[in-house]
């Protein structure tokens, strides 16, 4: 046994973010020096310091290496289909408005296959926090081109270098209506955590892009070393420019990465606009879906009946399908 192991009683020590993780699923599937884990840690830290009721926090991921995040968080957590985390989250949020819903997924998932949902959720100012881990590539499937791959970078489907133009995501999010927009790299642990905390405390469509190393594919295909080398690159090339014009945030291959908080403003959320509009149009007749969900309970009052006694039918057993069965 090594000296270190003798000195530290590792079994008794719990990692500070362990309560936020499904420790029974650790070890995770991510490669050594992958950046995703760091982002998870920052998110867990932000939850811890936000002092919010974790029972009311739900997380939704799509598919990809980043898409596995939902499966590791000890929250109500949904691992959905490729690209559809945002619409799934839309249903969760509107179905139980009191929930704090985070979408945590990859670049390919959220702005490739799921791009249409991204722009529409931002346009509606749906009240969700979207964390996008941008590793410039489709990691899970083996390093194919992404809508975020910098021009000239090599991917397995652009073996001679990417000739497409990538998205500038903060600009995309802002122009669609996001109320909070920030970008960091996985090197900026404290700033990223602070950004998550801030975003958690805001309302509306909040978007945090995190540039993170994919050591196994992006770094290897582009001969950039390991995740460690990419972190060093971020150290040398990340420029913090809060409030920068999002039009200027394009990322070129192995060029500077402008980070910071670019948008932080208030705009009525989808639900606020809906409620206000229906109150104006319908007055007292408007009955919103209850904060705790539109469930018609087994016993007790129907949430949508104003002070009406529980209906008898609620208690009866299902037999609609049996009544006329032959």
């Amino acid at each position, binding site marked *: 046994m090594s000296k270190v192991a003798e000195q530290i009683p590792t079994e008794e020590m719990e990692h500070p973010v362990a309560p936020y993780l499904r420790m029974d699923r650790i070890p995770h599937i991510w490669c050594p020096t992958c950046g995703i884990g760091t982002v998870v840690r920052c998110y867990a830290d932000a939850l811890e310091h936000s002092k919010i009721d974790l029972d009311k926090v739900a997380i939704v991921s799509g598919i990809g290496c980043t898409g596995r995040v939902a499966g590791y968080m000890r929250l109500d957590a*949904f691992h959905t289909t490729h690209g559809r985390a945002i*619409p799934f989250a839309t249903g969760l949020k509107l*179905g139980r408005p009191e929930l704090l819903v985070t979408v945590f997924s990859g670049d390919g998932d959220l702005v490739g296959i799921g791009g249409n949902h991204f722009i529409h959720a931002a346009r509606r100012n749906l009240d969700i926090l979207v964390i996008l881990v941008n590793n410039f590539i489709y990691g899970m499937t083996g390093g194919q081109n992404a809508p975020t791959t910098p021009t000239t970078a090599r991917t397995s489907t652009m073996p001679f270098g990417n000739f497409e133009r990538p998205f500038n995501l903060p600009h995309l999010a802002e122009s669609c209506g996001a109320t909070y927009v920030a970008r960091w790299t996985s090197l900026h642990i404290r700033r990223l955590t602070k950004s998550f905390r801030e975003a958690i405390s805001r309302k509306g469509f909040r978007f945090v892009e995190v540039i993170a190393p994919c050591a196994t594919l992006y770094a290897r295909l582009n001969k950039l070393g390991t995740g460690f080398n990419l972190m060093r690159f971020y150290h040398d090339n990340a420029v913090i420019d809060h409030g920068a014009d999002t039009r200027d945030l394009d990322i070129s291959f192995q060029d500077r990465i402008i980070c910071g908080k670019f948008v932080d403003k208030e705009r009525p959320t989808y639900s606020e606009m809906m409620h206000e509009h229906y109150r104006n149009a319908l007055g007292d007749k408007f009955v*919103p879906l209850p904060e705790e969900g539109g469930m*018609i309970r087994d016993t007790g009052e129907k949430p949508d009946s104003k002070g009406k006694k529980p209906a008898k039918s609620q208690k009866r057993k299902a037999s609609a399908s049996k009544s*006329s*069965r032959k």
Partner: protein
Amino acid sequence: MKTDPSGVLTGQHYLDGDHACGEGAMAAGCRFVAGYPITPSTEVVERISRRFPMMGGTFIQMEDEMASMAAIIGASWTGTKSMTVTSGPGFSLMMENIGLAAMMETPCVIVNVQRGGPSTGLPTNVGQADMMQARWGSHGDYEIIALSPQSPQEAFDVMIDAFNLSEIYRVPVMVMTDECVGHMTEKVVIPKAEDIEIVPRKLTDKPPGEFWPYVADRNMIPEFARAGDGYRFHSTGLTHNERGYPVMSAECQQECVTRLVDKIRLNAEDIVRFEEEDIDGADVVLVTYGITARVARRGIDIARNKGVKVGVIRLIVVWPFPERHIRELAPKIKAFVVPEINYGQIVLEVERCAAGQTLTVLVPHMGGTVHDPEDIANAILEAAK
């Protein structure tokens, strides 16, 4: 429009099938609808979007049908009864997430007001050619439940059943109606709210520490926990164990998928539902569903007037299929005749269950209109020879 506080529009009404379907959903307790406009289904969500703000429901018009389907799954995980409504092209786009709903065992309802396909096909005219897609459309093995109404009244009625069955079996339930029923206006009688039997979501009583989301009961159905109730559970479209955790092994696949299929197949006798008429002593039995069941009435009359003993099986639940019933009937009759507005879908199932014991005859019609009843009569007469 006068409704009770729970939004049930009790009384006699003159409604088209689409509006009746929307009323049925609301009476069944549906409080979240996500949809994308498509003829001939749009009237369903138009009705709902007018009524929901006054009854505690939320309708959202999503950016496409993939989003609509994903959104209703998300909403269902809050315990809110949810549905989406579409027609052929949108139904195709929903398929991947219908598989997710099946895999996550999410109660939800999908209404498909069928029109002529393939592709954009006949947007404003009738079809019944999505029947197999309803059952097999998403990849992998899973089972769903599908119902098919023949009238606006039945469109209302089957919506109640659809929501109830989705709650009991935790599957996506499809209401496979069609343009003709959707746009046909007839009398619809809606009972009082207390006379409508609705199945609430069966929530677990277990405390959070003891709850695993995919431990099945004797009926093979797991208990449900809502997002936001403190259970902090995980649900995934990946093959998973009883905890809801992904396990990439043949053993787990075997266990997980077998139950998804068997919870419907082994409970099929409790789910199947059909109407029978004059089966005893019949020479020819018509197997029919949806609007075609009504069009066939005329063909049956013609054939009966010419002396043929015609029996009828009208499917209300189409999937699961009344397999045993067809198998037992097959050796007693000369032929099954199956008219449908497609080039042979449910007929394949009849043929499979008849297993060569009798003749099975398809009366195909490509859609755009309903059948000419004469064609159905002629097929019966021919089969009776």
